[in-house]
């Protein structure tokens, strides 16, 4: 009966091995159509402090912000980012923020504070003019201008060339324009505000 005991033991080990691979299997089954981008651009959430250290100190990783976000824009650094893993971010190339403010209201900590719509600072859109279709005379577009939730104060058309978009000072960097931009290389993207030093009104940089 030695052999039977040995077989039963091996069965036990097989069960152990099968169970330890269970999470991976479930994970694969539950993967939705959204593809994770390895080099996703990570925007801070609306209402978050500019200093990422301050945000990481206040955030307790509960995930409530993602559970109330209507367009499913808020995602997490699930296994990368080292000590800052589990922090939420918005990847505008996948889904932009619609500035509904639900995440700011639900956050139980100081990580997100309720901020008026035009005071939100997630960054600022920047258009690369030698790629954008209307700016290189490859047709007409205007997708970014028509989607912008802040309207005329944030983005508009250059006078005289009505389909050439440029970013104004009111832009809060929600990233909806990045999401809808039809160009494969996304000539519009979100950058930090200080980098360009936006003055009032139009600038050449945008």
């Amino acid at each position, binding site marked *: 009966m030695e052999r039977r005991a040995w077989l039963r033991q091996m069965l036990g080990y097989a069960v152990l091995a099968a169970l*330890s691979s269970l999470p991976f299997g479930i994970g694969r089954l539950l993967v939705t159509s*959204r593809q994770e981008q390895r080099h996703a651009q990570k925007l801070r959430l609306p209402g978050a402090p500019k200093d990422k250290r301050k945000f990481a100190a206040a955030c*307790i990783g*509960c995930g409530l912000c993602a559970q109330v976000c*209507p367009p499913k824009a808020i995602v*997490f650094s699930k296994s990368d980012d080292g000590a800052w893993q589990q922090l939420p971010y918005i990847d505008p190339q996948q889904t932009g923020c619609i500035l509904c403010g639900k995440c700011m209201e639900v956050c139980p*900590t100081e990580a997100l504070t309720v901020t008026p719509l035009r005071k939100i600072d997630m960054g600022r859109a920047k258009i690369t003019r030698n790629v954008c279709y209307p700016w290189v005379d490859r047709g007409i577009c205007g997708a970014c201008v028509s989607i912008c939730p802040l309207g005329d104060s944030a983005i508009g058309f250059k006078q005289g060339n009505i389909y050439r978009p440029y970013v104004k000072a009111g832009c809060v960097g929600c990233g909806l324009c990045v999401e809808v931009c039809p160009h494969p290389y996304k000539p519009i993207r979100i950058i930090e505000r200080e980098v360009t030093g936006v003055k009032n009104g139009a600038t050449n940089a945008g």
Partner: protein
Amino acid sequence: MTVIPLQKKLNYLRWVALATVFSMLLLIPFLYLYQTFVAAHAYDYLSSYEKLVYKFGEFVSSPFTSDPKEALDALKGTTWIGRLFGLDLADPLAAVANTAASKRFYWPLWTMALIPIGLTLVFGRFFCGWLCPATFIYELNDNMGAWLRKLGVPVSRRRLNRSMKYFVLAVGIAWSVLMGVTVFSWIYPPLLIGRELNYAITLGGFGAGMVFFVLTLLFDLLVARRGFCRYLCPGGALYSLLGHFRLLRVQRKAEICNDCAKCNAVCQFGLSPLTDRFTQECNNCTACIQVCPTDALSFALRIQDQPYQGPGHLGRHYARHRHDGEVPEDGKTAQLAASTGSGRI
């Protein structure tokens, strides 16, 4: 009978509570998905799987609300931070960790933690036994460990030092202060369960937390029985400290105890009800009350454990060492012995 029969059933009730909490953690992300689909007005563009989720959400929420997009916000979160029908609740460990990491006392979070702290002061470590979604998995894992043992796999049941978890709590708080990050959000199993289920269902795929959780499962299986909860869990450490002078605790009646030691064997936390050592670690799970053949264990309102009462009066040890006249064999005890000796187990 001295014991209310209801107390014998509490262990089943506990399993119902654990299963309910766990299924809520599964349900809430699906309801969130349903909310996003409703908000997008895009039923026709959903995939067949997403249509199933939509119909499920409609089926669950339609009896209660006609406005799922807004009304379902009343049911959010995990056991770490949750909103239960409009009532915001927070884990006491969340409040402690947030205060340590941000080095500021943020009172809204502490108000959310007030009800759990109050309940812990009265019921002790009840969260660990009755609500924790990780306990649900750990207990199933423990049952599987017993089964594996039968098959011949050497499942280890080592005993380690219980004060390790207080060390983990202290080190976690110190790291939170030094690094400025909530360290407990990487290692606290109930939080990991809630968050990883949410990731898997709404965003697709598990995160790094699930790897850690599987490691704790293997630790329980291969090193110590319920080892993480007993020896390492920082939340368990905090609740143990808060529940040191808890009001409601399981106590032994030595007069009707027969020293069978089933309570010691069934206790997953490795405590010793037979020698009246429940200590602050007891999570009031009532498994010992259920298993006791003479109903000698029951809940009592005390703020401290009774000191050791000696061997049970119905056991052999007591009869052998009893001196005449010291503890008289009164009629009541004999009657109890007759009534409980037969018909149970």
